[in-house]
């Protein structure tokens, strides 16, 4: 969480300094929820399809920092080689999916990865996970994917980060149920809700959902209640968020609270945390520096191939 917060604030500065082209999308305030998922998954077998606010989850699931900086800075050596940018990165062969922009689209894809494993007899002990926002639950893709996963009773965990807004759109213009967890029963899947500003609660709830899925209890929806503590993207100041919401319990910073929790549990002291911050800062610095020295993609050398079949001329 510290690492991803540090990385993201660096990305924000780079964006504001004009060093990143396109958009920068942060997960400030959502780290506890996202990281809980990344931590609860097994890096050697599970599947993770992150969404835009999942830097913390990506890091926790083992995405090297350099892949973030390479993608944001357009390095030709990054996982996307400059062909795609920012949060649209991944290494599908390592079970880290590279999202498309169309919200909800990852749900069915993760389901398919699990179906493949079932057919091959390799599903045992595997969990597939993805995240969506409150807004993404309004998509047909989310619905069809959830329903399909439920019919197949797949070991799947879907985190719904209900951060009160979809871009500028408040919940009241997005859905009419009290809590999105009310949808779980309609899909015939398990559903839980958690205060996602509370790191320990997140860890417990998300891990329980992951383990339930792993045990064969079918898809699990976990709704996290929280607030995005940044703009939709770094071009946006989020001024549409009312002060009342900002200053409510939803607006608490999961990182600050998490640190307090860690300290009060005696898991780390102030000094250690300071050290983590410093380590994070230098790791981020190194990842940025490396990506910045790497070559940009060269349109004259790029093979411009959308097909793997050789019979197709570029």
């Amino acid at each position, binding site marked *: 969480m510290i690492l991803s917060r540090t990385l993201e604030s660096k990305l924000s500065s780079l964006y504001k300094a004009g060093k990143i082209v396109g958009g920068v999308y942060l997960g400030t305030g959502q780290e506890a929820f996202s990281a809980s998922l990344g931590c609860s998954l097994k890096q050697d077998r599970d599947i993770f399809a992150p969404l835009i606010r999942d830097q913390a989850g990506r890091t926790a699931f083992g995405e090297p920092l350099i892949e973030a900086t390479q993608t944001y800075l357009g390095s030709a050596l990054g996982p996307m080689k400059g062909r795609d940018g920012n949060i649209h990165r991944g290494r599908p062969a390592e079970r880290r999916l590279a999202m*498309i922009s169309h919200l909800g689209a990852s749900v069915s894809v993760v389901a398919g*990865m699990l179906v493949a494993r079932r057919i091959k007899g390799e599903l045992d002990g595997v969990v597939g996970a993805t995240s969506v926002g409150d807004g993404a639950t309004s998509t047909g893709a989310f619905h069809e994917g959830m329903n399909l996963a439920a019919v197949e009773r797949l070991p799947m965990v879907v985190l719904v980060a209900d951060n009160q807004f979809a871009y500028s759109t408040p919940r009241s213009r997005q859905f009419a149920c009290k809590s999105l967890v009310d949808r779980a029963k309609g899909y015939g899947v398990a559903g839980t809700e958690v205060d996602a500003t509370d790191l320990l609660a997140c860890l417990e709830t998300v891990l329980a959902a992951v383990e339930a899925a792993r045990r064969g209890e079918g898809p699990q929806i976990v709704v996290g209640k929280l607030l995005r503590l940044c703009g939709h993207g770094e071009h946006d100041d989020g001024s549409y968020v009312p002060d009342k919401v900002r200053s409510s319990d939803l607006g608490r910073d999961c990182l600050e609270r998490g640190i307090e929790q860690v300290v009060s549990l005696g898991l780390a002291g102030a000094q250690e945390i300071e050290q983590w911050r410093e380590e994070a800062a230098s790791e981020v610095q190194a990842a940025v520096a490396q990506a910045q020295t790497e070559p940009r993609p060269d349109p004259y050398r790029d093979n411009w191939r959308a097909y793997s079949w050789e019979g197709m001329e570029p």
Partner: protein
Amino acid sequence: MSVTYIDAIHQAQLELLRERDDVFLYGQDIGAFGGAFKATKGLQEEFPERVLDSPISEDAMVGMAIGAAISGMRPIVEMQFADFSSIAFNQIVNHAGTHFYRTGVPVPLTVRLPCGGTPGSGPFHSQMVETLYGHYPGLLVMTPATVSDAYHFLKESVSLDDPVIFCEHKFLYRWLKTAAIDPEGLPLGVARITRPGKHATVVTYSAMVHEAVRAADRLSEEGWEIEVVDLRSIKPLDLDTVIASVARTGRLLALGEAFPWGGVTAEVVSRVVAEGFHLLDAPPMRLNAKDTPIPYHPDLWASHRPTPESITQSLRQLLNL
């Protein structure tokens, strides 16, 4: 004994399931029921784990197949009608079509689309959709016109690493028969001279190949020899064979069953003039369906799409008769 076009599709899927552990089929009513057109009849019985009925969720069906394909499987998705692939459009063009370019990981997925018109099917069970999928990068689009091509292409689709949009024509399902499937198929990317000729070339694909042959037969009674080129796949599109034919005949009619704006006929004509302008003795022509939804009534439908009559008429014009 004879083999129909739909038999060939059935046979290919049966063999694929038998030959390869990584193949599975997914679609509405394809299991015990055997599919709306019986293309999967009996297959679930033999392969209960690899022939799966899906919910009515075209978007998720393709999304699921994408996930399976990047996990080492070779899914074949059956859309009940090509027209319903409009719901899966996003997953097909934006997810399957971009994945290899973006990530380097290919998506060996086949989407079977029962296309094209039959009498009484109306606006939503008759569409040709190759224009949509041909336009977007990353997809191969096959449009078999023969029983053997249907068989070989479907088998080949599955071994190709790229997503294949397999446009099978419903009109041909039971109408088109052959004594036996050719043991050897032509390779993908090569068009076929279905009927040789020397006075004009008709370039077409899918069911229209047979309508073109009928028109050619009529004109042959008057001494005109019309060459019919079957593109077989519209992406890749074999321009070489087309140009070679136009070099022989000097005249081109591009023929298709799709809506008239854009699409295969426009692509063919504009490629031919770009590379073979000097070969043409007359302005190249196009003949497509009309620019309205596909009408339900058989009498309207028969005038909406090209027919041997309208093709003959276009050819007469092309031959300057």
